[in-house]
């Protein structure tokens, strides 16, 4: 029975090397993987950029609408900063400086020469003392004792709202390579002799150079570094919030009841971490929630972060151009008789930013600028 019936049956229908449907199903996954690997164009992204329209799934985004949305968000964020955070204090009129020019450690302003690029930003609290004085002079009760707790809470809430908007705008406008949420959370803004921050000044704008785990991190433990540039308006907003508002925020927070027990730890977090409010660091879930709420309310549909990443990937595929931003350097290299790699090795110390090679920095900077131009910034 086994030999006459069952063995032929199993050989025909269940043996993996047969031509039966079972064998095909058995092999399907490896075929699928091969097909997927061989057609990167198809698996790249579900987004298609057609003229002024972006298609994905059943949605069509009008680019004009997306640009308007971003511009509106930038405006509303600035409005909130001026009205609810700075409480009507005119920074320029009060003589409070928001310094976005590269400075040397001793305070003297560096020249606009080639070596000033990428100089670390110094985020100090000198200007914030002036702001605190101005705010107190304007009669804000939460800065004088006895403190008006409800007013203080309201002010801290406004700061929290601004940081939410800042996070979303940084996520979109920092370039066509959106930061991972973990990267966002690990961004360090302050520079100290022992710890180097992730923010730099490039042409009067803030640049973020952060590292993230590359695809082969599990195998060789490698990290990738990426250069991202923020638009000028956003850079100024970030500096205002960090340089001016944060020290005042800390003093208000410490004088209100209900602050965390470990004040030293909280102070340390406020000095280094970008996203923190009410004494608590943000987490990934919070970022995810903020992002989905922001995009759903603004654009009218949900765009999860992975889908947004696909959208950026589609843009990068379409706008794949070779930038010749380093042409001057290339000419100099040619004259010196060596290539850009040797040039970076020899002169990397002079004009590299965050340990990134100059050629890569220039190329990524151009991509960021292209992206911002495309979005109307």
């Amino acid at each position: 029975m086994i030999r006459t019936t069952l063995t032929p049956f199993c050989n025909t229908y269940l043996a993996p090397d047969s031509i039966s449907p079972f064998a095909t199903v058995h092999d399907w996954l490896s075929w699928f993987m091969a097909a997927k690997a061989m057609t990167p164009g198809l698996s790249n992204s579900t987004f298609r950029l057609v003229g002024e329209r972006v298609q994905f799934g059943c949605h069509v985004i009008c680019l004009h609408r997306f640009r308007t949305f971003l511009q509106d968000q930038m405006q509303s964020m600035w409005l909130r900063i001026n009205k609810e955070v700075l409480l009507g204090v005119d920074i320029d009129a009060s003589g409070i400086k928001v310094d976005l020019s590269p400075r040397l450690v001793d305070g003297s302003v560096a020249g606009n020469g080639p070596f000033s690029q990428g100089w670390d930003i110094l985020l100090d609290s000198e200007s914030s003392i002036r702001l605190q004085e101005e705010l107190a002079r304007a009669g804000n009760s939460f800065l004088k004792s006895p403190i008006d707790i409800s007013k203080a809470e309201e002010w801290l809430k406004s700061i929290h709202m601004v940081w939410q908007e800042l996070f979303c705008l940084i996520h979109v406008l920092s370039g066509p390579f959106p930061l991972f949420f973990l990267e966002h959370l690990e961004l360090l803004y302050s520079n100290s002799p022992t710890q180097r921050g992730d923010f730099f000044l490039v042409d009067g704008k803030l640049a973020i150079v952060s590292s993230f785990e590359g695809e082969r991190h599990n195998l060789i433990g490698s990290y990738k570094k990426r250069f991202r540039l923020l638009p000028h308006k956003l850079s100024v907003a970030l500096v205002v919030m960090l340089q001016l508002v944060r020290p005042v925020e800390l003093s208000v927070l410490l004088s209100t009841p209900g602050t965390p027990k470990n004040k030293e730890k909280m102070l340390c977090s406020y000095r280094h971490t970008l996203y923190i409010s009410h004494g608590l660091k943000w987490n990934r879930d919070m970022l995810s929630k903020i992002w989905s709420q922001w995009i759903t309310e603004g654009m009218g549909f949900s765009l999860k972060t992975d889908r947004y990443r696909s959208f950026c990937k589609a843009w990068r595929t379409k706008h794949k151009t070779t930038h010749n931003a380093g042409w001057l350097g290339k000419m100099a290299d040619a004259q010196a008789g060596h290539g850009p790699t040797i040039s970076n090795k020899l002169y990397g110390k002079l004009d590299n930013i965050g340990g990134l090679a100059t050629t890569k920095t220039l190329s990524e900077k151009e991509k960021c600028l292209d992206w911002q131009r495309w979005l109307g910034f």
Partner: protein
Amino acid sequence: MGQCTKPQEAELELTSCRPGKLQPPGVDNAYSYTAVEAGLVMAVITSVNEAGPIMLTPQQQKVAKQLTQRIEDSDSNSSCSKILHNLLFSLYLPQDISRHAADVFSSPVVAFLALQSKSEQGVYCDTSILGQVTAKMQTCIRFRCLGYLMRKLQATADEDTNNEWIQYVTPFHLCLIG
């Protein structure tokens, strides 16, 4: 009984399925297996009625039409089960697989799997999703085969040596008919 004395050995040799690994699905997850089969049947019925992308042999077409007719005519699910079983059997284990050798997509099972590999937007779906579908599909085919073996063995259960095999196959058969 010949050379294969133990059912496990025979099964290992013939289906490359490790003994003890293949377990009948429990009540909780049985639905997820039947859902794959239901998707296949739905695709086949739609193809028969609306000339879809799935190619069917005359025999498969005949059974699929019978099933459609029976569903339209009768409210009772039990009356459909035999035809449903026949349809799935003809899809998984077609009488003539030479056609399949020339073009794998001539098999409705493979065509269905190919359609599952793409998303609505026309791009490849995630590998993790497809892995689940293929694994369940394979298990379903194995169950149908074991059901077939069970019936064959029961029909010729005059030999004592068959009893061990029947004992092995019964849970799978019960799972199929239950």
